[in-house]
């Protein structure tokens, strides 16, 4: 894999000196005549959480699919861990908006899937799967099929499946958009707790402003047609972030800031205000 990447590896040590895990330059994507986004530049540092917020249909999922190597890009380049991404690479895992669980596999089977594809041995799978099932709070549900558990639990399973391959980069596509508000809140704080235990670089896509601010070290706002990055907001809230964070004046100020950036185009109906929290 290194041999493929070596000819023109970009400077993986960013200006800040921190390792850059994800580097995106001049990215553009079209579906036929529809230009989804253009000139996207991103640098995501080691163990940084970058939130991406934008209205429905602005191309958030498309961007993640490009970065995961699932679909080709029309312009620009993507580098993850120093490797030029043209197809899915090891060390990166995605959590899907609609969970993407296989209905014919149990929770155990679904969590084991990524490991199996990565060629892990039986012993390795037997050791790691229960660990990650416990980490996301699904102990006791190993043998349940997806239809037997709630949406929140299904996404816990999707999260465990991604975590189980121990990726250095996690791509989260509106992971909590399909669960009810209460469960969503629980899952947000659990994800933060898991991240504290085992920090990874994370691209966290959401259309909830509050969620973007709560999770991210930075928030980028996508807007326009075709969309591009309208603004990058640094979230200088301390970690670990907890329920207390939500009550801090600084949190409210940042939320308002992101809100006004998004609102400068009159599309207020497309955003949730406090829906997620």
């Amino acid at each position, binding site marked *: 894999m290194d041999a493929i990447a070596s000819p023109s590896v970009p400077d993986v040590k960013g200006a800040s000196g921190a390792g850059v895990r994800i580097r995106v330059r001049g990215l553009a994507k079209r579906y036929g005549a529809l230009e989804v986004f253009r000139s996207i530049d991103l640098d995501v540092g080691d163990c940084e959480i970058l939130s991406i917020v934008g209205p429905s249909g602005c191309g958030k999922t498309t961007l993640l*699919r490009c970065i*995961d190597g*699932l679909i080709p890009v029309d312009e620009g380049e993507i580098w993850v861990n120093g490797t030029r991404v043209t197809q*899915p*690479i*090891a060390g990166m*895992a*995605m959590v*899907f908006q*609609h969970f*993407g669980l*296989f*209905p*014919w596999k149990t929770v155990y089977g679904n969590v084991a*899937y*990524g490991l199996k*594809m*990565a060629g892990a041995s039986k012993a390795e799978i037997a050791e790691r799967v229960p660990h990650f099932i416990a980490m996301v*709070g*699904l*102990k006791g*549900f190993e043998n*349940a*099929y*997806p*239809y*037997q*558990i*709630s949406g*929140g*639990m299904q996404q*816990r399973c999707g999260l465990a499946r991604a975590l189980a*391959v121990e990726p250095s980069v996690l791509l989260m596509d509106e992971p909590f958009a399909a669960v009810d508000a*209460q*469960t969503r809140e*629980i899952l947000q704080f*659990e994800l933060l707790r898991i991240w504290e235990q085992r920090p990874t670089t994370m691209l966290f896509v959401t259309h909830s402003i509050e969620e973007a601010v709560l999770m991210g070290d930075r928030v980028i706002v996508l807007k326009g047609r075709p969309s591009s990055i309208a603004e990058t907001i640094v979230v200088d809230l301390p970690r670990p972030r907890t329920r207390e964070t939500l009550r801090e004046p600084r949190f409210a100020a940042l939320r308002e800031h992101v809100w006004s950036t998004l609102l400068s185009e009159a599309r207020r109906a497309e955003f949730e205000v406090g829906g997620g929290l």
Partner: protein
Amino acid sequence: MASLDASLAKPIAKEAPRRRALGVSGVFLPRLLAGLAIVLVWEASVRAFLPAYVAKPSTVLLAIPKTVVDAAFLAATADTLGAVAQGLGIAVVIGTLVGLVIGRSPTADRMLRHYVNGFYAVPMIVILPLLSLWFGYTSATRLATIVYAAIFSIVVNVSDGARAVPREYMEVARSFRAQRLRGLFEIVLPAATPYFLAGIRLAAGRALIGAVVAEFFTAIGGLGYFILFMSRTFRHDEAFVGVALLAAFGVGVDVFVAWCTRRFLPWYRRDERSA
């Protein structure tokens, strides 16, 4: 930790037994009554209008004990069902592979679709003379007829199922770097299993018809030939025991497939399970 949304988990088996018990008693009685009615009308009309050698339920029933121990009948049954099982096996393996390829490869689909649909529509009875020319009046002709009769319903169903696999599943597989072939057998195949089982159900019926038709035409023995021979020698009761066995086989396949669905596909159609 998970307690809050654990409580949202759907009850897994609580209401199932009650619903099934209701289903069995609710279906069983009408089923029995319908059967009795058919038998009575049959018995009465034969007694009233037809000669004594014409089969009627009472005499068929009496013929069962001596027919089922008849060595010729047993050999014929084993012969036919063995051929059906063998032919179905061949049809399932080849049909599934071809169906998967057609369902997942637009090129293969464009190349083969019309041929498959064309052959599917051609009645096996018009293919039989050709097959008997190629294979002679042997059991190979019967086997070929069975495979021909069965394979296209498998191909058509499996390819429909393979086409209908949600794109998201394929994307998850790709994201976790599954090789293409593993995706085909570990994602497409299980996702298409319900279609596959529907195909087997159709194929089993058609395979049986294929076997019997081949035996009628080529006189190579077997259950179909047994029935034909008994009819021609005016032993209609014995013939009907054979017919009843064929019918039982049809029902048996249905029950077996339904059982397989419950046993191996608990995730499939969990709301509409009834025998």
